[in-house]
């Protein structure tokens, strides 16, 4: 078996070049797949998952409550645009987590996203991402086990473990001979570019030709591509996809409000992933998370401002779903965090470490490296099917 280190040496020497068949690379040691979806801009958790059974809900939302929500239990419902996710919930493949937050307690998107991705207890506390550190703890593999469906490399996947990335291209693939020469040149001059280049060639072999539409439909296309990477028996095991546009300060539910469209995109993306994965869906967990929630009350412009706790989702055939996990703080004025936000009662890291332990198979010592913290974070028990 070729070890990870040997492969990197091969790549570094310029010998790993275009068209190296995937079958010659050692497969991952696990069948478990994990997809992390980041909703950038702070999803309004109380719109996505309204607490319709809370007697204070309608008053607290002062105009943002709506009819037609899809009832989950005595307290919670889903936005009508999440009809596909409601089906997953009914099939026991979706868990909703509410009043959840990272360790971040201020209201900057960019600090909030940075902390969500770096997995430390403060913005810029680490310059690597927790998902990459999780990859680094997985059994060594001869090829990248992580993939970002993104033209950028998101912080959550930056770090010591080599990862690949893919996003649709409007450009024309160059000829093979030039690719081989460039791979060799990078091998002699720039090991980082050499690694990236080799990873890209392999990724193109998997995802090239995946149709990704423009606009809100792009997310479903990227999730389809993610499924291609994850479905193969020798494929990647961790994927990261993001969808922006959740910062709904203005008219969030009205004619030009983005929230409703984004929820449709999310719903269709999860469905596209499930379809693309086929039987591998049974081994999959999808963690959907945003940097923070939004204000409980409507602001002066029919939207919501930056808040604290919000909602997250855990979907997939491997998930013990069909339930809402919440230690509901309530919506009375005295219940709110700093008189304006939903109070956080679940630490996002408890969910993430619960998944990493019971699904990805990391032990607690490894989890402490993935989410370093002053006080130990207790992984949430029972998130996955036994």
């Amino acid at each position, binding site marked *: 078996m070729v070890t990870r280190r040997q492969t990197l040496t091969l790549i570094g020497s310029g010998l790993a070049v275009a068209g190296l068949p995937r079958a010659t690379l050692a497969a991952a040691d696990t069948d478990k797949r994990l997809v992390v979806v980041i909703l950038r801009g702070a999803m309004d958790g109380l719109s996505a998952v309204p607490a319709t059974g809370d007697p204070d809900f309608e008053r607290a939302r002062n105009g943002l409550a*709506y*009819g*037609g929500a899809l009832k989950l239990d005595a307290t919670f419902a889903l936005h*009508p*645009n999440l009809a596909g996710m409601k089906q997953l919930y009914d099939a026991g493949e979706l868990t909703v987590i509410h009043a959840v937050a990272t360790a971040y307690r*201020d*209201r*900057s998107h*960019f*600090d909030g996203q940075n902390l969500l991705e770096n997995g430390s207890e403060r*913005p810029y506390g680490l*310059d690597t991402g927790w998902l990459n550190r999780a990859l680094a703890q997985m059994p060594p593999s001869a090829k*990248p086990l992580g993939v970002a469906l993104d*033209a*950028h*490399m998101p912080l959550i996947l*930056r770090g010591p473990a080599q*990862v*690949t*990335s893919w*996003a649709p*291209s409007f*450009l*024309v*693939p*160059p*000829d093979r*001979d*030039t*690719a081989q*020469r*460039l791979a*060799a*040149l990078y091998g002699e*001059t720039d090991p980082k570019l050499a690694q*990236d*280049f080799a990873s*890209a060639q392999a*990724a193109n072999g998997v995802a090239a030709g995946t149709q990704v539409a423009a*606009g*809100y439909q792009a997310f479903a296309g990227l999730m389809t591509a993610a499924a291609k990477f994850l479905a193969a028996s020798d494929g990647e095991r961790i994927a990261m996809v993001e969808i*922006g546009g959740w910062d709904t*300060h*203005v*008219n969030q*539910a*009205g*004619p*030009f409000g*983005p929230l*409703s*469209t*984004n929820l*449709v995109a999310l719903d269709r993306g999860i469905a596209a992933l499930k379809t693309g994965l086929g039987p591998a869906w049974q081994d999959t967990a999808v963690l959907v998370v945003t940097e923070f929630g939004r204000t409980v009350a409507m*602001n*002066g*412009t*029919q*939207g919501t*401002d930056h808040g604290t706790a919000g909602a997250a989702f855990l979907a997939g055939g491997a998930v013990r779903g069909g339930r809402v996990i919440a230690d509901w703080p309530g919506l009375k004025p005295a219940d709110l965090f700093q008189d304006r936000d939903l109070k956080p009662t679940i630490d996002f890291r408890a969910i993430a470490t619960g998944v990493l332990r019971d699904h990805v198979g990391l032990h607690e010592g490894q989890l402490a490296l993935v989410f370093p913290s002053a006080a130990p974070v207790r992984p949430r028990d029972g998130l996955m099917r036994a």
Partner: protein
Amino acid sequence: MTIEGVIAANRFGLGARPGQVAAISGDPKGWLLSQLTPETELPLPLATLPSTADDMGAFLRWIREIAAEAQAHGTDLAKLKPAGAPDAAMGSGMSGGATGGDGGFSIEREYVKAFVPRHAMAVKARFDTAVATERPFFERLVHFWVNHFVVSGAKPAAIAMPPAFERDAIRPNLTGRFADLLLASTRHPAMLYYLDNFRSVGPNSKVGKDPSLRAPRYVQAFAVPQMTGLNENLAREILELQTLGVRSGYSQADVTSFARVLTGWTIAAPPRVPLYRLVVEGRLNGKGLFEFDDDEHEPGAQRILGKVYAQAGVDQGEAVLHDLARHPATAHFIATKLARHFVADDPPPSLVDRLAKTFRASDGDLKEVYAALVHSAEAFEPAPRKFKTPEDYVISAARALPAYKTEPGTLLRAFASMGQTPYNPPGPNGWPDVEGEWRGADSVWKRFEWASQAAQSVATATMNPDVLAAELLGPTLSKQTAQAIARAQSPAQGLTLLLASAEFQRR
């Protein structure tokens, strides 16, 4: 050719043109400093773009047209709510179809038809300006500040605004005092629109107490009725992203107070005359569209960062902005961003300190700060510590290949493929400025794809890519890259290897 010449052209500029490194190698720092003067006239590609009035007028017309068309299709835009049928709800975003069904009225289709060509033209004009400029350091600074005071077309309703903002607020002010740049940005209708301030109303103002008193406005057509409260978006982002920087000690109370201060900073009311007359009279240029409306302004003193601002009216906001501009945290924040942009992802603290000190000592004279940067030894260390962004990569390649030609649509698709569509950064924090973000498997491959296409489009049988490589990269060209280019099978292959080389991507 000196290494300082290569650094001046590549690290400070937008990439060398053939022969340029040799031309500036005698006095590279003098060449950079000579570019720090205000622009006497707009570069030709920008001057021939539609005017700000046209951009903003087009948006107004478009809103009216879709409203009329939606009505014709029996869709009442104002009544679409998520509580309705899922298809109707889906259409309530700009990028969705208003009726969801195929063949029906589609907001997205109308929007794309109206604005994507306009956006593509503006991106092409920005690109042509950067490729042709004799003042590439100045142009880099334009790009830097547009990425600091961000108005992004990624918010669909703002798609027409970033080029106007760049022309009106940024270009005329970037070699002056930071305070003037900040004020020009905050007054510009594009910023007031993008960060929602035009909608923000003081709860105790006349309009706050009686919304029916709200004046009709130019933007009324796309404002939503009943917006009569505070919106803290602009206030927060000025503190967090444009002046003090995040985690510099301000509180949520400071954000809210500052939002109250900025109520009434809005976009001019439309006089009851046809739009074309406003255009003819020049009243719809960007600067002319700022208006302070005392009826929407929250009355009374406000406390920000411990200081009480008791001024009335617009003076209150100007006083706060002036204080923010000369705050030591602002000096440090701007110094850090400049040093990160031009020198290293983790800039040397000595350099940041020197730039911040210059900023403070000169009361925010940006020309002095840029000069301090040029005179810093850290900025001329030979080892490259920056990885070009996709936009800078494409611009520098086009500067290297004078025969390269492209079309607006092709260029826009290339930038989109590489994850950096100019004028459309994902949020008000602008594009990231570190290698970790831009160097990944996908982006390295996309650059190779683009380089290969560009090289094939300009290559001729008699071309000598090895000579060009030496001209562009001078002493920074590695033996291995020079050899790979020399051994290429064709000029196109040699050019591709040059443009894709590590030396060309790093600076």
